[in-house]
């Protein structure tokens, strides 16, 4: 009876639209309440965006429908393949339907003991249908996956282009990143699990009604009603229920996620203040309430599946009644009955598709918002090129860009005039009307307590953050007049949260200087103290550093990022905590060799929380609360009461073991 509803193993391991859908909406939908946009536009914010309690995402079908249109527009170059996959899906289901109908006809005809040759065609047909159903399904799945993966390739490239087109973007949290990746995959699910099976189900339903009409129009009418309920009414109901469940579950799930964070990240605070038991009780209460709600919602959700089963049987029964009443021959009554059972089950696939679609809504909307937002600016991306790269071969851009330094003559004086940066309206300014001169060739250290604005200063100079007011010029030109690819060749270096790519050491370094030869690599690595480690590795420069550089220790990672900055060697070199994560002795050595390796005439802006090794610099600028509070050479500052002197004495005490407290 359910021969058409064959199991579909899913080697990609992604969960299908099981009837548990109502109880378990997509994890991206629950808990992580976040506005629909990607939070990429604004300047880097210090804190993650406020978690809202409104978890329903964009309400109504409107935005989701629009999102699907954006996705379908992307699918247009592959329309032929998609239609092919849809037709094959229909052919698969049809073969299953025809198989059951023909087999029934064959069997019931055989009971009339006709001569064998009258059955030969049907016998051959049954065999052909049985085998072709499997083959159709195989080709359908291959064609569908191929088309969809091609589209995903496009979507990935476009999403990346859209992100790259923005001038500045905050570093994202790991959560936001993996959500972005899984959002892109919702496109895959929309096509493979919603559109293709739905198209197949609709086509087969139409064919089934047509075929039934040839035998008995009244029976076809009954079948059509059954199919309409199964393919339209039930999916609408399932969508409603899924949506309502998600809306009811999301706040509780979100609150429970917050509880889990409090009980784990806040475990020490809770224990120290004897509040663990209370917090645990509150969380346990919430899990119980969530469980009660889930049980209640599941009862409603599975009612839809029950109605579907009932519908298939009742429609078949009604078809038998009607067919017998209108004098259809007995053999064909059997064919109609078995065919009806199969056809309604095919149409019931639309219920699963509807659930799946509801769950994909949030992710799709986010992808569409991201793509729609920058569609105009992204260069047209056609079908992907055919060649197939070997893994790790070129995760980095090739060397087609102008190599290394672009010292286009002229000076590289840097000036800040009255620059103010605020990360949020109403917040204290990170830079407060700051003015600063950095003449070409000068080596300056910027120090100060945490939150004084050191990293913001680096972000402003490298164009990652645009000042709210004031003016930044480099070489007399306003910073905003520099093209996006031009500025990094003038101002750049090692910035906070430098990223190490999952690629070879060489590729990571070449990002800094695409044309660099072995000697230049070695020189930069030596200055950063990385060369010995590279030489020790069996694969040398081709050692692959793990995902996010995780096969490197924190210190080596830092050295790698520093070597990359040195290789880039822009005329204005910004180094944000270049020796972070190194022990004091190594930090001193690396700082000295780094400064020695910077070509004469290049400016250096060194941001540091350690004060050792700054004696050789031309000037030290002390920031506090976004303002310059002290400046001068090391010797002068140590002799003057103030933050620098205090900090210097304490660091000396901590690192060298003696204490010289001020009176």
């Amino acid at each position: 009876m359910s021969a058409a509803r064959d199991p579909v193993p899913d080697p990609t391991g992604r969960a299908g639209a099981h009837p548990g859908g109502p109880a378990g909406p997509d994890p991206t939908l629950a808990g992580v309440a976040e506005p629909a946009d990607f939070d990429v536009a604004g300047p880097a914010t210090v804190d993650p965006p406020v978690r809202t309690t409104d978890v329903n995402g964009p309400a109504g079908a409107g935005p989701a429908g629009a999102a699907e249109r954006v996705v379908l527009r992307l699918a247009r170059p592959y329309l032929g393949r998609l239609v092919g996959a849809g037709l094959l899906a229909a052919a698969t289901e049809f073969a299953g339907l025809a198989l059951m109908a023909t087999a029934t006809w064959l069997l019931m005809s055989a009971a009339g003991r006709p001569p064998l040759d009258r059955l030969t065609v049907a016998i051959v047909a049954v065999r052909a249908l049985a085998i072709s159903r499997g083959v159709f399904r195989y080709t359908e799945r291959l064609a569908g996956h191929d088309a969809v993966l091609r589209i995903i390739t496009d979507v990935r490239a476009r999403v990346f282009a859209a992100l790259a087109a923005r001038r500045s973007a905050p570093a994202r949290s790991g959560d936001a990143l993996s959500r972005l990746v899984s959002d892109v995959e919702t496109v895959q699910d929309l096509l493979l699990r919603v559109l293709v099976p739905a198209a197949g189900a609709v086509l087969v339903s139409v064919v089934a009604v047509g075929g039934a009409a040839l035998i008995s129009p009244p029976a076809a009418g009954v079948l059509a009603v059954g199919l309409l309920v199964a393919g339209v009414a039930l999916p609408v109901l399932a969508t409603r229920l899924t949506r309502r469940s998600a809306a009811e579950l999301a706040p509780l799930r979100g609150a429970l996620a917050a509880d889990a964070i409090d009980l784990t990240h806040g475990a020490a605070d809770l224990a120290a203040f004897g509040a663990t038991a209370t917090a645990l009780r509150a969380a346990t209460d919430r899990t119980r309430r969530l469980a009660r709600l889930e049980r209640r919602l599941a009862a409603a959700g599975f009612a839809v599946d029950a109605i579907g089963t009932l519908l298939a049987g009742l429609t078949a029964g009604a078809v038998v009644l009607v067919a017998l009443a209108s004098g259809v021959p007995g053999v064909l009554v059997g064919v109609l009955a078995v065919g009806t059972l199969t056809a309604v089950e095919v149409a019931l696939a639309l219920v699963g598709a509807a659930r799946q679609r509801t769950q994909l809504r949030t992710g799709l909307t986010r992808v569409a918002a991201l793509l729609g937002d920058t569609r105009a600016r992204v260069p047209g991306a056609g079908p992907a090129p055919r060649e197939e790269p070997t893994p790790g071969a070129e995760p980095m851009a090739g060397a087609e860009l102008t190599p290394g330094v672009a010292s286009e003559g002229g000076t590289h004086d840097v000036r800040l005039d009255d620059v103010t940066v605020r990360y949020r309206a109403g917040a204290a300014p990170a830079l407060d009307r700051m003015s600063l001169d950095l003449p070409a060739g000068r080596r300056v250290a910027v120090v100060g307590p945490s939150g004084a604005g050191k990293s913001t200063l680096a972000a402003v100079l490298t164009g990652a953050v645009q000042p709210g007011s004031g003016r930044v010029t480099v070489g007399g030109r306003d910073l905003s007049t520099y093209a996006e690819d031009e500025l990094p060749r003038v101002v750049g270096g090692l910035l906070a949260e430098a990223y190490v790519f999952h690629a070879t050491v060489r590729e990571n370094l070449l990002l800094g200087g695409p044309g660099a030869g072995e000697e230049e690599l070695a020189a930069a690595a030596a200055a950063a103290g990385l060369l010995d480690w590279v030489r020790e590795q069996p694969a040398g420069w081709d050692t692959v550093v793990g995902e996010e550089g995780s096969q490197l220790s924190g210190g080596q990672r830092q050295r790698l990022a520093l070597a990359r900055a040195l290789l880039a060697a822009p005329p204005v070199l910004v180094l944000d905590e270049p020796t972070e994560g190194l022990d004091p002795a190594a930090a001193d050595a690396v700082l000295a060799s780094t400064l020695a390796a910077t070509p004469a005439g290049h400016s250096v802006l060194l941001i540091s929380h350690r004060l050792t090794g700054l004696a050789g610099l031309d000037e030290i600028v002390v920031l506090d609360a976004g303002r310059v509070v002290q400046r001068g050479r090391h010797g002068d500052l140590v002799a003057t009461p103030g933050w620098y002197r205090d900090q210097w004495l304490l660091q000396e005490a901590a690192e060298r073991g003696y204490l010289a407290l001020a009176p």
Partner: protein
Amino acid sequence: MNRRPFDPRLLRRVPAARRDLALLAMLGVVAAALVVAQATTLAALLATAFDARLDRPALAGFAATVAARAFVVWAQGTVAARVAATVKAALRADLLGAVGRHGPGWVAGQRAGQLATLAGRGLDALDAYFTGYLPQLVLSVTVPLAVLARIGLADWSSAVIIALTLPLIPVFGALLGWQAQAATERQWRRLSMLGGHFLDMVAGLPTLRAFGRARAQVDVVRRMADGHRVATMRTLRIAFLSALVLELVATLSVALVAVPVGIRLLGGGIALQTALLVLLLTPEAYLPLRAAGSRFHASMEGLTALNDAFEVEAGAPAPARDGERGARPVPDGRGEIRFESVTVAYERTTALRDVTLTVRPGERIAVIGPSGAGKSTLLGLLLGFVTPTGGRVTVDGVDLADADLDGWRRQLAWVPQRAHLFAASLADNIRLGAPDTPADALATAVRDAALDEVVAGLPDGLDTVLGERGHGLSSGQRQRVALARAFLRDAPVVLLDEPTARLDSASEAVVLDATRRLVAGRTALLVAHRPALLADVDRILRVEDGRVMELTPAPTGGAAR
């Protein structure tokens, strides 16, 4: 990894789910019986329809079995979802409870994030396992048996063929599964590298931008994504092929049954009704086996989460009984604190080596030293978060290892480097552990911690609800909340861990003032970061490389021993 389809630990750990699981098994039996009943009545109905007659009892029976099947479908889903909800609630409570029993030392860092995710969304993956896979697993046992029994009654020769071919499905499934798995594993490195590339590039986008390479990477992303497609398709071809083989095995088996039945029908050797029954039932025997196999992949995530949860709980010490707890002594915080040859060794590093130290009541001691030297471990020992791997810590003569830690912690006020603020009202955050604090005591603590100006600036004052992890407050404000907690505690011993780290000078001055007020008249151990804190202390300790040395403050500078 545990690849068994059902984890028997579940029955032991979540006894509340036992009844529903039994019910689920029973429903599986009923569902199988109904599959048979539906085919039987339909066969009867069609056999009489062949003679253009309507068999009313058969039609009624068919309608009734269909209705009963619908009910069983609903009941299976509902019961499965109930099991899922019960298990998730129980595991969440156990998991979060286990975190408390393991103690804060264990849960620090990355593990906290993993556990929070596991207790939150991680366990939601069980929905797919319980509602999608488990009922199907039950059916894959009950339905083939029921079908076999029914056909055996009607036509034993067909039953023999089914019984012989049925094992082919799991056998072929396993063989092909191994093949596909081997092929997948060969591709795995390549697939994961190509698949991870997009994430890698997006995560590194700020760095690409800093080197002016962001736009240039678009083509590379496209090429790599395309490489991912090609590699994925290669794997899928094998995986789909194995599904095709399984389907053909099932189809051929059905044909093996159907062909003799047809021939006997032509020869009049079998009744039409029996033949129809065999035709309708035979495919049902093969279907659930393949369905369960195909859903196993999707349920793996849930099984993995289940396994993780069990492992976290298994490692946790058993909850202490009330009787036991009462027997433990509570040290007096006004007594002497002694570290006796304390060593703390972690898996890779030794945080403290052979530290001997006496803190006299009322003494204020500063601890300085490079980061990672073991300063925080010193405080962790006193808080009971860290247990010495050698030596012991005593307070008022009581070894902390034997002490009632809750009672001891009640005499401690702790200001951590970065206090965790909870997604609750500001008042509740300050009253942590003392929810019944009267309003005036709260107001005093707020004033003492210089938090009053912060409160005045908030929309709902003390009733303002903070975001997750205290979102909405600056570092300086958060630190003042932590100080207010400490003031409210009014404990004889105060532990401060760099209370002014990460603060700008203006906030630092405010927090320092409050810290001085807090420390006055109490025994205090403060990990210092700024010299300003050192001015009012009695002794200064320097921790380096796990060893503790005493420094003598010299008023005008000079070397210590």
